């Protein structure tokens, strides 16, 4: 799906836990996530901390969308 969206001309960032799969599939902007059943959350945290964590990940994804890339790039910092 990432590839078809990219092909249509829309930049897309893939937030996912298993980065090697995303690389194999062909995503260009990749942001590693927390865990398979809760990529953008962590049930062990308090509601507030969890939301802060999610916001941080989404901001990282937005940053990736604002960054020019020339090939597959993993935004893991």
């Amino acid at each position, binding site marked *: 799906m990432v590839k078809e969206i990219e092909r249509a001309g829309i930049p897309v960032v893939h937030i996912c836990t298993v980065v*090697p799969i995303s690389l194999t599939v062909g995503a260009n902007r990749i942001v590693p996530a927390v865990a398979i*059943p809760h990529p953008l959350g962590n049930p062990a945290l308090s509601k507030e901390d969890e939301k802060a964590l999610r916001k941080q990940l989404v901001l990282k994804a937005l940053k990736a969308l604002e960054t020019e890339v020339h090939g597959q790039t993993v935004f893991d910092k």
Partner: protein
Amino acid sequence: MIKVVHYINQFYGGIGGEEKADIRPEVREGVVGPGMALQGALGNDAKIVATIICGDSYFNENLEEATEEILQMVKNYEPDLFIAGPAFNAGRYGVACGTICKAVKEKLNIPVVSGMYPENPGVDMFKKDIYIIETANAATGMRKALPAIAKLGMKLAKGEAIGSPAEEGYIARGVRKNIFREERGSKRAVNMLVAKLKGEPFETEYPMPDFDRVAPNPAVKDLKNAKIALVTSGGIVPKGNPDRIEASSASKYGKYDIEGVMDLTQETYETAHGGYDPVYANQDADRVLPVDVLRELEKEGVIGKLHRYFYTTVGNGTSVANAKKFASTFAQELVADGVQAVILTST
């Protein structure tokens, strides 16, 4: 006697389904689950001395650590052959089988074989490194897969010559060998063409590699005024799954209006995905589809607007052809709606 160690996931190990996918590796003496039939296929010259079981999510979330732990377990048995799976079309299981096979082969110098459906992501990741027997997409193909895995495994363990992918049933690794043929190339090419014109089967001698890569689009220039859409393969749907998107092998996607929705709650949204433990997503679907924080960022002016609709499907054994079809269809809608960027989340 050829000593074999077999790797399987928590499901085939009889430990549990998705709720147990986070278990750490453990080792059992002898055969477990499909190991029994595998032992039958291997015959009397080989013995499965141990079975290693690991949760698919644990392995994929801790690739390096899990590989290291399992390598140690394999090493203790000093096997002559390592078999993983078969994983059929289970993505995380395939990645686990491929990763551990590659490590056992390279670090311990033990022959390895696995089995997967060609669309399993583990195939593209590891087909160059290891022998992967081509299987059906589901466990119904077990009876056919095990004899082929056993046969190739025994050949590898005995150091016998390995035939072509078509002869042995493994997925082509991209290895080319020089061989002598009875007929010269021009004749073979014409024969192939004639067969093709007649609609008869023929086997190309040089399949073209399939590099389906899409170059990245330019970055978003003006995020503050950009319309951002959310897409997910994590199966988030309005409570009750109104379009009945299948829990696996999805044949459709959903498009849902989130105008005015500030937060996905337990009462309003859930996941239709059958390939991961749904507890966390059902409690709070924002953990998969971050509507709540995008609404905040919209209010704060970080982004222009969150697109009115999100698109969703279940990425669980769903065919590549279907996923491609879904996305090429809705991508046109996204373009027409003036969406400037997409955040796609996967579980």
